[in-house]
């Protein structure tokens, strides 16, 4: 009886996910990006320094090493900034949209009636900044899960409640 038989549906009049206005991540999340970058490159610099100090033959390559390091650093900063600017999320009536990426721009959409569970977690720095990460899981495998970082704690709690409400509502409809 619930067979879908509407043959001539006008696909152009359907709501368009690509036209949804996405909310950007909290600006404070940039600090976390910088912190992570800084930490990674500090460790890398330490390793290079140790190698140069202890292995004498490696000193001939000191200039290429520094050059590569700087190029990698600039590239990482650029990619991370572009990726920050590109990220955005939206919670529509029936699904959640998350957009991310720098070189590859990816948009993932999960309908609420396919959400398995939702988690909220805060890292050490994000707790200091009052931010949280929302993770939305489906049964479609780890690659299909959405992870929205850099959402204000209060906002994130509300989103989580909203999602849980939606999941519960869906379950009662199905039963």
């Amino acid at each position, binding site marked *: 009886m619930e067979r879908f038989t509407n043959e001539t549906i006008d696909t152009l009049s359907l709501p368009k996910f690509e036209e949804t206005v996405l909310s950007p991540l909290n600006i404070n999340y940039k600090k976390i990006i910088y912190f992570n970058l800084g930490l990674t490159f500090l460790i890398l610099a330490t390793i290079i320094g140790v190698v140069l100090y202890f292995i004498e033959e490696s000193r001939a390559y000191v200039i290429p090493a520094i050059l590569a390091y700087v190029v990698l650093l600039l590239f990482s900063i650029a990619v991370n900034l572009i990726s920050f600017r590109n990220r955005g999320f939206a919670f529509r009536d029936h699904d959640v949209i998350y957009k991310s990426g720098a070189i590859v721009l990816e948009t993932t959409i999960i309908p*609420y009636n396919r959400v398995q569970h939702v988690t909220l977690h805060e890292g050490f720095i994000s707790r200091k900044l009052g931010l949280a990460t929302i993770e939305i899981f489906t049964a479609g495998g780890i690659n299909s899960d959405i992870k929205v970082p850099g959402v204000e704690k209060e906002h994130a709690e509300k989103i989580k409640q909203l999602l849980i409400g939606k999941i519960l509502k869906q379950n009662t409809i199905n039963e």
Partner: protein
Amino acid sequence: MNNDFSNPQRQSLIGVLIMFADTLQSAIRALFPILIVWIIKIDQMNKIYLTIGILAVFVLVAVIAYLKYINFTFYLDEENEEFVIKRGIINKSRLGIPLDKIQQVNINQSFLQKIIGVHALEVDTAGTAQKEVTIKAITHDLAQSLKSRLLEGIKTTSDNSKVETESYDTVAKHAFIQISLLSLFKTGITSNYVRSFGILLAFFITMFQYIEDFIKYAEIEDDPLDNYLRTDVILKFIMFIILAIMAMVIVVNLGRTILKFFNFRITKQNDSLLLSHGLLNTKNTIIKPEKVQIVTVGRNYFQKKLDVLDIKIRQASSQEANNQDNKKTAIEIPGCNTAEKDMLLKFLLHEIPQEGIVLKPNIRKILMQSIKFLIIPLGAYFLLANYAFTELKEYMLFLPVYILFISLVMYFGFRNSRLFVNNEFIIKQGGAWDVDKDYIAPHKIHAISVHQYFWHKGLDIGILNLYTAGGKISFGLADYTTLKQFVNYWLYQVETTNKNWM
């Protein structure tokens, strides 16, 4: 026939042998690196110590197997309506399965079990949280009566009509589909060329290198191979090797197919399918249509001429969802003909899917693949061959073969790549030699993602991923606007459907 399962009982005494084989197998697996070293250094080792060592391992394994056997008991707790299994030598564990949680009970038989005349009983429970339970060695009669007793339990506790208590001997008499030996033969000689070829080629190359190493190691001054290896001889030799490999590919595939799928029977049990097959190991599998996520129908040029095709069914499981394109865990039905395929599709998907609107990939797909499989690997090869390892130049002869092979695969892959969309189904076709069609119903979709490289933005092309509980389906590069339209439509379908994905 002993029908009283309320007292804890052990497996058949002869089951110790199965335990022994299992324990030995895991011991060998765990000690594999040490074993390799032993085998290599076998000449230098003290034979007495070696024998003692091996004997000690055997005795230890035997003792462990016996203790495992002694400590493994199962019984039916009538009061709590539970099937209980107790096991463990040092860490004892008690596993209770409520009878109404039992989905299916399968009786399987491996080669060893066939020899000593016992069966394995597998209890399949609902949900992924609990691991399935296997009793490894019980007699056929006991297995049958336990099976019917376990499934009976469900009937009394809930009116689950899915359950079939009929013994599978009687069911087997009216098979839904039976794959004949001829069909298996056809499948065997026409499938898995590429994979088997790769494995055998690797084998031959290793053998060849081993022989060369051996000659060097034996310190023979004149390498006899070098003297023989003139161009004409090399060509003849390569031709011979390739022909030999091809012949072996066919023989190996034929053997493998018949061994694995001999006497393939599909039986309909109310609303699920029971598959049973195997020459040495008999395997039973249950398929429930509502758990099926992706159905793949594949065939190559030869199979088309012979009217055989392979069906692969992916059911919902966290394992499948995560290993993406890997179809290893899929349930395979080989050697169906068109009529049987239609029957199966009708049963699994409730109708035979029609091809709807066609979407073709963009020509850029070939360009992208050429960069990935031709330009980058060849560039790396020339760079390395010129500046670092000049001995790589010896393999220059293989380059045209590689380029030809990759180009053909890319061309046919592109030509066969299609996405068909209609109201009820999404059909993705792909593959260069083996042309596979993946069928999914939109309501089985869990998440959709589209992605685009930034330099493809102006061209308006992108890639689509559909995630189901049975794995991922990818299509692209294709027209991004059309893909987005489809996405909106599928979202609409998923969000308005009452159908469950499982």
